[in-house]
């Protein structure tokens, strides 16, 4: 039986058991990762996972069941069990639930890939990581790490409405980290980010990173940080590098515009949102420089796909336009509940997990400046780059970020390096203070976005560029 055939069997079983709608996803994924520490590869990990997940809607209640058995009997059992679980959900029922209509698609899609990442020889990959980590050690760091991860996923989606969509998505990423320890603390520098840089691309992404060229610098900076002065404390002008802007967007915009949070569906675990749907289209989120797009169709970005896991095709829309809140990340059921007419942001991290509202690519449109111009026009402030820690409240308002490295900015020039740079703020006040934005957009990839119970790890993309903010509290310490 084909994979579409298995999905259709599961859907039929769910409908036979009383579902009024069902969809099913057969997924096959190969995962490969390698980590090198201090010049040696530790372990090479390789994982292959395949299975079937079925979602059934009975009345207004959902059920989901997943099995690793790709057989007709297994598919039928999964469909039946999903409907049974949906019936149990009705013991604590909610309001009537609908799905917004969607175009029924029969399609195939695959991400761009120049060099098949799993096909690259392991010895070549190992040599790169060991060489990079050796270079970091040679340049004085206490601990040198280099790593890559590859996901090669094929999925076949079908629904009781007639969707038949298969997608092949290859995701690749890599990075290096130098840690120096001394004076009772540890200091870290990474390239291009602590988690690395990721995209829906092949091994060419790793070539483009040129890890070896940056290894000496990160090692030397991690050592220099040990004796650098502490980041000054107080209110000042803050310039953020592009990688830190990626996480600023992710945490204080991306999660805040998730419609399931706004509706309270994530209240206990992930939290809610400060956004009120009554203000959609009118609320001031930030300054006029703030234009945030939701765009799962950006070639090579980590949050890209052809269709989301409900079969809705990738669509671009504004989340924030000229500082005004315009859009949300939604699914077919949450959109119906909110009275909206679009979904397109429902994703699952594997065959065993329920699809839910997730970020795709959420990020900035370019501004009119360059980082050089931003620094040159700043008399007094702090520049921070590369995320080290992140924390934000359950409404996605009150945040505190730590960065790996900071520099004083004096009279239009970068000054002394400062260690343990942190800043804190309240989302809309912070974004409203953004008065300069660079045009130097990079599509950053975040491969570790946690959400959902059972926990799911999302892969999200964030177009981001350096920006300047006024009157920000920096240098928060214990």
């Amino acid at each position, binding site marked *: 039986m084909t994979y579409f055939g298995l999905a259709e069997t599961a859907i039929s079983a769910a409908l036979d058991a009383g579902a009024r709608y069902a969809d099913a996803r057969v997924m096959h994924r190969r995962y490969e990762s390698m980590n090198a520490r201090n010049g040696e590869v530790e372990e090479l990990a390789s994982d292959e996972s395949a299975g079937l997940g079925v979602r059934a809607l009975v009345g207004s209640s959902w059920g989901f069941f997943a099995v690793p058995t790709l057989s007709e009997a297994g598919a039928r059992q999964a469909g039946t069990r999903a409907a049974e679980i949906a019936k149990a959900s009705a013991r604590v*029922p909610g309001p009537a639930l609908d799905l917004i209509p969607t175009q029924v698609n029969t399609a195939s899609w695959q991400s761009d890939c120049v060099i098949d990442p799993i096909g690259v020889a392991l010895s070549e990959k190992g040599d790169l990581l060991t060489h990079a980590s050796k270079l970091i050690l040679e340049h004085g760091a206490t601990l040198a790490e280099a790593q890559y991860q590859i996901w090669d996923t094929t999925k076949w989606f079908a629904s009781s409405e007639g969707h038949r969509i298969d997608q092949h998505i290859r995701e690749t990423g890599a990075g290096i980290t130098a840690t120096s320890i001394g004076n009772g603390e*540890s200091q870290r520098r990474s390239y291009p980010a602590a988690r690395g840089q990721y995209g829906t691309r092949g091994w060419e992404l790793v070539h483009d990173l040129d890890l070896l060229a940056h290894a000496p610098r990160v090692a030397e900076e991690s050592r220099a940080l040990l004796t650098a002065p502490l980041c000054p404390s107080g209110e000042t002008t803050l310039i953020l590098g592009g990688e830190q802007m990626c996480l600023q967007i992710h945490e204080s915009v991306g999660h805040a515009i998730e419609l399931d949070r706004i509706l309270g569906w994530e209240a206990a675990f992930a939290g809610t949102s400060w956004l009120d749907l009554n203000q959609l289209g009118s609320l001031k989120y930030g300054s006029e420089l703030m234009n945030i797009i939701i765009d799962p169709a950006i070639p090579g970005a980590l949050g890209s796909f052809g269709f989301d896991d409900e079969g809705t095709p990738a669509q671009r829309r504004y989340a924030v336009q000229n500082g005004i809140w315009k859009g949300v990340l939604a699914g077919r059921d949450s959109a119906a509940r909110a009275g909206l007419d679009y979904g397109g942001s429902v994703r699952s991290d594997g065959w065993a997990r329920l699809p839910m509202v997730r970020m795709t690519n959420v990020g900035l449109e370019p501004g009119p400046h360059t980082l050089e111009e931003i620094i040159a026009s700043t008399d007094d402030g702090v520049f921070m780059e590369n995320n080290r*820690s992140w924390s934000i409240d*359950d409404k996605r308002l009150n945040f505190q970020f*730590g960065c790996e490295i900071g520099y004083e900015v004096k009279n239009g020039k970068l000054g002394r390096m400062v260690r343990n740079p942190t800043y804190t703020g309240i989302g809309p006040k912070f974004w409203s203070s953004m008065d300069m934005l660079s045009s130097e957009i990079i599509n950053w990839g975040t491969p570790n976005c946690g959400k959902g119970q059972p926990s799911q790890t999302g892969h999200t993309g964030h177009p981001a560029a350096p920006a300047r903010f006024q009157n920000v509290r920096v240098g928060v*310490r214990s």
Partner: protein
Amino acid sequence: MNADQVLQAMAKALPGADVEVRVEYRDSALTRFANSFIHQNVAEQTTTLGVRANHAGRTVSVTTTTVDLESLAERTKAALAVAPLDPAWPGLTAPSPLVAESVVDDATANATPDERASIVRDFVEAAKGLETAGYCRSAHWTGSYRSTAGQSLDAAATDAAFDGIARLNGADAVARRASARLSDVDGTAMGERVAASVRSLADPVELEPGRYEVVLMPEATADILHALAMYSFNGRFFADGRSFAEPGATQFDSSISIVDDPFFAGRPYDPEGTPRTRLTLVDKGVTKAIAHDRRTAAQAGVASTGHSLGEEGVFGPMPLNPAFLPGTGSVDDMVANVERGLLVTDFWYTRVLDPKTLVITGLTRNGVWLIENGKVVRAVRNLRFTQGYAQALAPGQVLAVGSEVVPQPNRRDLVNSAPVALRLASWNFTGGASG
């Protein structure tokens, strides 16, 4: 899938190699509710086969949910042929029996969607119209480990968890419970408790940031246990010099003792086939042990403590079931002895700023109250803190240790903690709700 057959097949395909095989079966279900109705209700059955092999100085780990042994053997052989050298390979675990069995509760292993929904319904009804949200989980794990070194282990465990909040006028109150038995989860009792708690959070005031004496409820101190487990008792962080822990040194108040206890609701052996024990990490303020897998243990010149995380081992071995040993104080007694301070229920979104000093930032959640002259006087809006956790538990800083252990669930099955309430001399709040 039979672990013996898998080992035989792999050993035949890889003659002379060190090979270990793990076969794990999970049957896990989670019923999730929000806005006082069940909105997500899921179940999964997974079988995972893991193989780790070392041959000619090279090591690979392969996991799969498929059952094609021939293909698995070919993949492993192909990977071994080109894998980089691994001079630090620590070898396989020598044959050794389990120290103890984990709890297997048949009723939890066979729990139905209707039973989980009933617990949710009890919680929602006990909250009497307040908005509620949370989840109820049941899980059953069985595992087998075999190796060419002769180690052979079979085990099973069950896990039950509940986490629920009630909401009123922007405030939340929480109840959580972890156990090996779903019958320990009393939806009605927890619903009544959170309803009473959230009603006491009316009209909160915003306090000036600064240092306050605190009484931390077990929901909050669970976060301290997990941070210590991840960054301080982690064998890799210890080996790298990124942990503050120094075995033999008095690093905590003498009232603090911490153990890692896998037998409450955890796995009795780790993915390297090392039987787990009840490991004392801190005894009366003295750091006693670090959690090790075979690699970090070899580096430290000690034996593995059975804390490998398997294919997720890059982060390092850590305690998965940490517990404070209870003291003698009640929360009421702790509050009665505070002249001015805060009663804090829970922490939210905590992140480490520096693992070496274990400085953490995060926020309070699910209930904060001002204590004056030994009495809870009013609710307080949530605060951000930036606090060294080790510093907060240092000698002289712990004023009382609670007697009631309230087991707390984790995001993952069979990972949990057993915290108690703590009264601490000082906690550094660095911001109010408005920034």
